[in-house]
């Protein structure tokens, strides 16, 4: 990670400010703030139940936090829903796979191109030149992604029939297809073996390097986190207890306590 990057880390692209999220009386996230910088790979770590996935769901608009603001590209999002956030250039994958099970791999990835396709249903129904043209172009784009992720051999298989590791890849492909500025990856390597993990890391680094895509990923494997991330946010009990480069965070006493389980007061 020492060689010069094609896309050096820049200004904040995603600003999470004082987010609090409660489910009834349960506080999932409490007054959490951090910035993600353009072109970086940012890891969010923390013990189980620390509120990592809830945080991603807040950023993506699935959960509506009771307090706090989220700004994308310097613009504070006041009305926030997954499809509005997607239009602002943010895409994601899900912890427990949220693929379109009965659709083929290629079709799943094509859904990711939705925001790049503007033909309305009449243009599609009558196959007017605009619809035919954009279908061809986006298909070609998706073929490139399929090629890139080395899943060409399963391009026409319904994703529901694929093994877990491949489904994770397809989900990454779908997120990549959006060409979003920022990708949220919720445990992209969970349940993978060492080899699959290595592959996934390679893809993440390659995408970041080739397109400058900002990545926010939740991961449990510390080795992976320390290897690929530029900065790490540590959550515990819905609060940020560490934020900085991996080496700094690893040496932080509060982080060590959280992971080793020191009694909370």
């Amino acid at each position, binding site marked *: 990670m020492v060689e010069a990057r094609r896309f050096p880390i820049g200004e904040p692209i995603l600003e999470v400010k004082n987010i609090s999220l409660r489910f009834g009386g349960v506080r999932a996230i409490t007054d959490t703030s951090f910035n993600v910088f353009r072109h970086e790979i940012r890891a969010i770590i923390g013990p189980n139940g620390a509120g990592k996935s809830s945080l991603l769901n807040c950023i*993506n608009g*699935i959960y509506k936090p009771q307090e706090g603001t989220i700004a994308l590209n310097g613009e504070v999002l006041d009305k926030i*829903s*997954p*499809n509005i*956030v*997607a*239009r602002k250039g943010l*895409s*994601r994958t*899900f912890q427990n796979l*949220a*693929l*379109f*099970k*009965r*659709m083929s791999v290629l*079709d799943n990835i*094509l*859904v*990711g191109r*939705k*925001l790049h*396709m503007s*033909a309305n*249903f009449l243009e*599609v*129904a*009558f*196959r007017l030149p605009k*619809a*035919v043209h*954009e*279908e*061809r172009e986006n*298909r070609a784009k998706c*073929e490139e992604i399929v090629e890139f992720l*080395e899943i060409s*051999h*399963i391009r026409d298989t319904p994703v529901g029939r694929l093994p877990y590791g491949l489904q994770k890849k397809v989900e990454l492909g*779908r997120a990549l297809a*959006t060409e979003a500025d920022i990708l949220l990856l919720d445990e992209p390597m969970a349940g993978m073996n060492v080899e699959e993990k290595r*592959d996934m890391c390679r893809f993440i680094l390659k995408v970041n390097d080739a397109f400058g895509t900002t990545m926010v990923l939740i991961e449990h494997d510390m080795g992976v986190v320390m290897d690929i991330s530029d900065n790490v946010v540590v959550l515990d009990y819905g609060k940020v207890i560490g934020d900085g480069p991996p080496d700094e965070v690893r040496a932080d006493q509060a982080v060590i306590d959280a992971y080793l389980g020191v009694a909370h007061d």
Partner: protein
Amino acid sequence: MNSNFLFMGYTRSDVINLVVVLAVALILIPLTIESDYWYASILIPWLCLALAAVGQQIVMGYAGQLALGAAGFMAAGAFACFNLILRVPYMPFPVALMLSGLIAAAFGVLFGLPSLRVRGIYLMVATLASQFFIVWMIDKFGWFKNYDTSGIITAQDIVIFGKPFTTPLEMYLVVVVVVAVLTILAINMTRGSTGRSWMAVRDMDIAAESMGISLLRTKLQAFAISAFFCGVAGALFAFTYLKSLEPVAFDIKLSFKILFMVILGGLGTISGAFIGAAFILLFPVVLNSLGNNVFHGAIDATIISAAEQVVFGALIIVFMIYEPLGMTKLWENVKQRFRFKREPKATLPKPQVT
């Protein structure tokens, strides 16, 4: 892969299929079948109900919204068509047909609204409202029936460019053309970005929304297009098959029939709508002729019609358990098996090289 496409994104086999189907429907059948019974009692109702089933397929098989009330939209389309021809001077039949579809589509949007809040079986109950409301409205306000008190109104003759289409064969040709055009449009939509958005909403709505798909627009669009197909189908059904207009013809039984066509034919395939419609329509005919010709009336007609219900019920359960994708899927499995034998290499995955 682009070399596979002949034009407009159609493959060679698409074009061959289309030409074969149209040749059979427009040339072979009119040349070989002379009996009016076949046109008036089998082909015309089959095509009309298949078109309605395509509508049901769009909302249920593609967009995944469990809606029940296709017959309500059919009634809306049928009575809209009747009133348009009756009240608008010089209204050409094709235009009236399209406008009836649009009126049904407006109802589709209205009764699709509950899908934004509820899903599954609850949505089914909510959409039943369309069934009861539309039929009730037509019954309640005499204007829709032109203040006819007999309860049954004769449909006007179909006249296109001054030429009346009144014999069964002529009506059949009208129905074939309308159904063929609308089916091609439906296939185009389901294969294109429109259909992908529907299926994405069906398979995983949260992920679909995260990819920038608006659930509100996509669901209402599916309801509207579905109702459009049902509306046109209802108008055709009334004008070419029933030749009369009565709200009772569009009761809940018809909605269920269309639902079963889609389930038996196979959810999420356009061909399933046609296969399912053929099965549901022909099965009683086959049973009856079995009763008449094999058992020579020894079995009572009421027993036969009861047996029909039992067999339908059993089949639906069997399909739901063993092959939720219906008869189309069975047919594809058969095809797949033969293909596999011929060229086994094509379907084996390539070893992955990293």
